Every structure is written in C-alpha cells, then in structure tokens.
C-alpha cells in the first residue's frame, strides 16, 4: 500500500528557497531597531551604573546623615531607576587609591524616585571605612556613582502574610522607612507593624517621619523599643528593653499568619534568630535582610586552625594578571581592593553572586551561613570572593568590575 504521505505534493519545496530570499528582499533596508517594550523596562530598572549627585544633606543626629541624590544628567543619567521598597544601592567610591563598594538600603520611597531622587541614610560605624568617608566627604554637589536598585528584601503578596512585623535596629530602619512610605502611598499593600530598637529617644532615626506616617495611614503602627532609657524619659507607647519573642507576639495579629522582616546589625540577627525561633511560625514567614560583610572569620566555630597570617593571591582579570599579598583575616575581595584592584561587588554578603569567580588553586574558608553559591559552583571551584577567606596562597580568575 502506498504511504498516505504521498498525497502531499513534493513540488512545493523548491519555491520555498526562492520565496525566503524574496521575503528577505522585501524587508526594510533600515538599520534594525534595538528597542522594544521588554528591553525598555529592563534597561529602565537595571542600568549598569547610575551617575548621581548630592542635592542636599540632612543631619539626623547620633552620627547619622541622609543624602538626597539626584540624577547627574551631565554624566548621562537622565532618570533614576524605579525600585521596590526594601532594595539597596551599591555605592562605588575610591578611597586613598582603593576601589570600594558598600550596599545601602534606600530610605526614600519608590515614589520619590519618580519625583527624581533617592535618599541614602548613612550612620557612623566605628572603623567603617566607607561610612566615615561618606559622612566627612559627601556634600551638596558631590558626584556619586551607584548601582541599579538591587536585593530581594521586599514584600511579596503571593508569599508573605498580610501583616508584617518589621524588626529594625539602628540604621537597619532604612528599608522600613521606604516600605512604610510605599504603604502610605498605596504602592504596597500590607499592614506594617514596626518594632524599632534604639538605645534612647535621641538615637531614634526618622522619629518624626515615622510618627507622621503612623498618623496618616491606618495600616502602619510604630513601636519604639528602647534599651537604655530611664523610665521617665520613655515616650508614650514605647517598650523598654530589647525586641524579644514576647514583644513580637504582643504586637502580632492574634489568629492569623504574620510575616517577620528583620534588618539591623549582625549581633541583632544572631539574637533575633533565637527569639524568632520561639514564635512557632513557619520559616517562610521569617525573612531578614542580607547579613552584611563578615569580619573576623577566626571567630567562626568551624574556622580551621594553622592558617597562615599572610597569603598571596594571583588574580587574572581579563588579560591582566597580578600577584598581591594580604592578611588571611580579610576576605579575598578586601585583599584585592586593598591592593587597588577593583572587583565586581554588590551585596558583599555572599548572596547576590555578582562577584562569582573561578578559584584555580588554593583553599578558602566560606562561613556556611553566607554560602549562597550554586551547587555547580561548588563542583567546579567557583567562589564569591566577598565571603571567601584565604587559607593558603590562591590563584583565581575574577570577572571585570562593572
């Protein structure tokens, strides 16, 4: 029996070849357009760099200042990238010949970025290279380079509960100020209960702003938690002591799920990890901002012994290879930066993977709580230099800094 396929005509094929060329011939000779709606959104939200300048400085007291940053049109930034409340900007600076980056949560609202500004709020950190530099050097008119808004510390309605208990410590208040404004603006929709830990009323940042937001918006509740304040100086409605499981429960909704978002210094994360474990809520409802840069790897319980104090690192970036030396208590990234070598960096907490590099020889220590590498990275010897500490001399390939 003849195959049923023979009913299809075979002669249709040859004209296809000429037909294709004819179709091409009918195409416009203009240079193909490089714009489309997906690319427009991608480039608007994720510019490689944003060139800004300081428009004004607000002293917030307690060694803390806020910087209003606006586009530096002369350098090519026309419009700020919009962002979801909770995101951070990585600031790029050169300090004494040393390329340096730091991630700072945006304290202004997403809507402010449409109005033409971001606000970063920087608090003095003892021995903090970048914070001290910014606090002393950034003035009205200072040119500032930052990344696109980055990070995953955001409210997500499909994942998070409709009430979020936000736990803030010190300058960890910044993403929550942005979130509270976003709730007030109607750009985010959740009940925000802020438990904000400070030493005393004088060290509370954004006190007036937060009070105003609470008054304006029924979805926002602010509770100050003061650790070092005499009874007669306690503001009305504030709590004494530290943020504990008991306190969280006191302000949590009684019979429904709630999320807990945490942002603050590293000691606070360690303390609250234990406290939030007592809440008996599911893991998915507890989210914390990135850990931040880890110092002193030697204090980690699994840090090996007999690590040489000084190490050498041979690093290749594109076609340039250099050998530098540094201290094993510094991260690979810090050693390279101290030697004047710019490394791609965003979060500096092991999470974002932007510094992903190939370790060709040598050993590093990676604190397990900061090891966000992919499985195959471990298989093929890839590391995140921001949270890798040399245990021996190293040879590595690092991508170009961008």
């Amino acid at each position, binding site marked *: 029996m003849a195959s049923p396929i023979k009913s299809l005509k075979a002669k249709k094929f040859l004209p296809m070849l000429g037909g294709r060329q004819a179709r091409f011939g009918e*195409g416009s000779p203009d*240079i193909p357009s490089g714009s489309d709606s997906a690319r427009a*959104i991608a480039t608007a939200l994720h510019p490689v760099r944003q060139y800004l300048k300081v428009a004004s400085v607000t002293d917030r007291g307690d060694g803390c200042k806020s910087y209003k940053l606006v586009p530096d049109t002369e350098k090519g930034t026309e419009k700020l990238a919009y962002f979801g409340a909770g995101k951070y900007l990585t600031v790029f600076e050169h300090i004494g010949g040393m390329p340096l980056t730091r991630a700072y949560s945006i304290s202004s609202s997403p809507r402010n970025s449409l109005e033409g500004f971001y606000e970063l709020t920087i608090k003095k950190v003892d021995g903090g290279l970048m914070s001290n530099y910014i606090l002393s050097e950034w003035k009205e008119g200072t040119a500032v380079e930052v990344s696109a808004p980055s990070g995953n510390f955001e409210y997500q309605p499909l994942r998070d509960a409709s009430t979020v208990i936000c736990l803030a410590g010190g300058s960890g208040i910044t993403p929550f100020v942005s979130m509270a404004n976003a709730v007030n603006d109607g750009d985010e929709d959740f009940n925000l209960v802020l438990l904000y830990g400070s030493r005393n009323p004088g060290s509370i940042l954004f006190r007036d702003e937060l009070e105003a937001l609470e008054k304006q918006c029924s979805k926002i509740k602010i509770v100050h938690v003061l650790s070092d304040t005499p009874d007669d100086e306690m503001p009305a409605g504030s709590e004494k002591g530290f943020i504990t499981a008991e306190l969280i429960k006191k302000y949590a909704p009684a019979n429904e799920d709630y999320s807990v978002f945490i942002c603050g210094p590293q000691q606070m994360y360690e303390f609250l990890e234990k406290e939030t474990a007592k809440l008996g809520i599911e*893991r*998915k409802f507890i989210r914390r901002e990135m850990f931040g840069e880890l110092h002193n790897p030697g204090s980690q319980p699994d840090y090996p012994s007999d690590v040489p104090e000084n190490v050498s690192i041979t690093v290749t970036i594109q076609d340039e290879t250099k050998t530098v030396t540094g201290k094993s208590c510094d991260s690979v990234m810090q050693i390279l930066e101290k030697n004047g070598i710019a490394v791609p960096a965003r979060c500096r907490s092991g999470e974002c993977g932007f510094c992903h590099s190939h370790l060709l020889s040598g050993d590093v220590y990676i604190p397990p709580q900061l090891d966000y590498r992919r499985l195959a990275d471990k298989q093929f010897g890839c590391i995140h230099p921001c949270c890798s500490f040399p245990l021996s001399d190293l040879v590595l390939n690092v991508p170009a800094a961008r």
Partner: protein
Amino acid sequence: MKKYDVIVIGAGNGGLAAAATCAKAGLSTLLLERHNIPGGSASSFVRGRFEFEPSLHELSGIGTPEEKGSVEEQFDRMGVKVNWCKHNSTFRLIVPAKEGDEDSFINENGVRVSVDARMPVGFEAFSRKLDEIVPGSYESAMNAFKLSEDMYTAFGYMEEGENPLGMLKVLKYFPDFMRLTSHTLQEGLDALGMPKKAQDIFNTYWCYMGVPASRFDFLYYLTMQSSYIKFGTGIPQNRSHEMSLAIDKAIRDNGGDIWYNSEVTSVIMKNGKPAGVVVNGSKEVYGERFICNASPRFVWSDLFNKEDVPEFQARMTNARKTAVALTTVYLGMKKTKEELGITDYSVFIAPDRDSDKQFEACQDFFSGYCIINCLNEIIPDCTPPGTSQLFLTSMTFGDAMKDVKPEDYKKFKTKVAKDMIETCEKALNISITPYIEEIEIALPPTFSRYLNTPMGTPYGYMLEMWDSLIPRTIQYEKDQPFDNFLFCGASQERGDGYGCAYHTGEKAAKLTIKAFKEGK
C-alpha cells in the same frame, strides 16, 4: 596585545559550544560574556534554601549509554562531562472542560476536563496510549514516528555533506523529505489520517518551538518531537549551571580564555570586515575570525556603525518575526510534591485542545496556558527534605509589554504570576499559594536583561513555514554577514533549544576551523 584566532561573542549555549570546539581544535580562542556567569538561559539562581532551574524543561539528545544522543555525543567531542538525571515520561496534557463540551469527563484529580493525556516514552507505547484515548489513531502515530526516523537520518545526511551534495543524497534516498518540509504539521497529520483529537495531543510540544500546527513544518516537528519520545529526556543533576560550567571548564582546559562581565560594545572594522571588538566601551581586542552568539537584531542596532551593516542583513533582520517570549514563575514550596498532590514532572495546561487556539490565547498574558514542572519528580533531592520546587511557564507573542510602565511592572508581574498559579491550582485541583516559601517571577523584561534578545525571547526568530528549518539550513552560508563572522544560537537554523544552540555553535566553529585549515 595578543590577537586571537577566534573571538566568540556571548557565552550562551551556542557561544559556549563554539568556543569549546575552537579551543579543542587548538585555535587561540577568546570568549566574551557580558554577564558574570556563563550559559545565558542555561544557568541557575539561589533564593533562600532553593536553587532554581531557570529554563531547561527537558533535554532530548542524551539517549542511552548504548545509543548516545546528539547532545551527549557533542559533549564527548568537546570533552564535557555532565551528570544526567533521566526523565522517563513525556508529558501530561490537561485541557479543562468548557461549557458544552460533549466528551468531557471527571479525571483522577476530580476536575472536569475535555482532555487528560499522560503520555509515555517510546514510539510504540506512545502510539498505544494515544489509541486508547482516541481509538483509531495508533497506525497514524506509528507512521508518523517511522517517518520521523527516516527524516532524522535524512537530515543527518544533509548536515554531513556539503550542499548541494548532501541535499542530492537526501533527495535520492528520502523522497518524502521534500514533502514533509514543505507542508505544515497539520497537513502532514491529516495526510496520515490522524483523528483531530489525537493530533491535538500529538502536537502538545508545539510550544517548545513556539509555532502552532497550522504554521509549523511537519518535518521539524516530527524530528523534534520524536527526539523527546524515543528515549525520554534528561536534565543535569545540578541545574543547567552545571552544563555551562562544565563547558566553561573544557574551554579553559583547552587553553581558551573567557572574560566575564565583558560586554562587546562595538565591532572594529578593517577593509570592510570585522577585525576586532571593543569591550566595555574601552578595551580593544583583535581577532581573525568571529562567532557571534548575540541576537542579530541587537548586533546590528548596537555594535556596528550604520554604514557597516550589510544591506542584506538589515533587510533579513527586519523581514523576520521575533519568536515567542516567555514568562516563568519559580516557586520554592514548603511542602513535598506528594503533600502538594503533584504526580507528574511536566503538565501542559491549555485553554483549548487545538494548538492554533492555544497560540491565539497566548497573545495575552492571561491566557490560561501554563506548563507546570516539578523538578523533584526527576531529582528527588533537588530541594531540602520536606520541600519541593515548581516552575510555571507561559508564553506571549508580540510587543506584549508596551502598556506597562517600569513603576507598574512589579504589580503587573505579581498579577501575571497569580493568574498562572491559579490556572494550575484549578486544573490540578491542588493548593499552591499558601505553601510558597520563595517566589521569583521572570517576565520578558527579565529575559531581556539576562539574554539581551528582542522581547527577551530565548527562541530567536519564529520558525514559520517560509523561514523554517530546511530553507534556513540550506541557506545557512548566505545568511551569514561576513566570511569571518558567523552567527550561532537560537537565531540560527534550528531555532531554540539547548541542543539546537549547542549544534549551531559547533557548526560555526567547524566552519571557522576549516577556514583556518584552508588558510583563508
């Protein structure tokens, strides 16, 4: 400054394969990639305690240890070793019933459906199952698979031999080849006498190429589909990032250089031909030959001076239609697949059984079309105990984001994801939303950001009848812009798919190696 034999632009699957093949052949090779990791689509990302597979649904071309598939053979040639996890079923198609459907029924999930087809691996088993669902379809399905085997062999001849010699061999031994390639999938299955309902199930994989049955060529569909059904498929143990890093390693082991975060921002011309590239706007690198994995449209718009763009390339690029764009929702679940009630790796949920109607529906983001995959079905321990990961995929066509402003994008994304999740919840009669621990939503702008293609398409140009596989393959050299500058990747003859991209990379590399051997 060193001058390279070959500069490969872009470390997507095509560029990786091209660089690995060139380096293996001893050419001094530089691979340039704008992102900080290799792979383009073939990657992974971590959220909380989950590492997500960003794009690979299943990879055909692995085969068995006795009969290796095309991808596994190519990996052997490149010196690349990957740990495969085998997938021994194909797909389940669920079409929820619409009002007035006469042959609808309640399926095992307790959902009224007009189609629920769970299809096995193997030509015989697949055909038998099809016949069980649509009596009288066995013979037509077996005939289709038989044809696909012939066509696979014929296509191999065509690829092997240099045209027109390869073509003549094909014409001589496989007269049906021309019939199949010049007719649509629908015409072909009609000719084989396959009942319409059976065709609808048979055509489920149309979305892997992004062209529905009335517009896609019969030959390519048959060979593509049978490559999945013949031996089953596989995925790498440690997400596709494993494949990309394995090729990265092979390139470096063979002396090739790879620069990450190194975007080609323009091409340097000399005597009317590419002679070098500028990296990150400032660094010049020179090379003899170039293989380009970047999207042709953006190469012409971004990298070349206006006067250096060949007119034919401009016309060709403008004449072709950008392929489908994707939306993917990645879900880290705080329950196991058993607790969630998920029983299949890959379920295609469609608003209509007909692929053309599915295609029409996908003009809109809220189409009711969604593929749901559960990686734990293939890799049980790909997430921590007590958890699982899902990814949901949908498609859109055209300039779909034009009404969405950057500031509305986050809300829009969430709305699209919610709609897709609810589509799956309804079609499978399961609950997903309360158990989401991690979620990431990738819309066309996300793919645009990472792949840098028009509308973020991972699929290249639409493989319509007039611009289909065989004409593209025969006219491959005509399509290339300069004799020392070849394209590879999804924009080339085979369209999308990891295996296809690897193939085009190797093909461009082989032509490049040959040119060096011939001293051109």
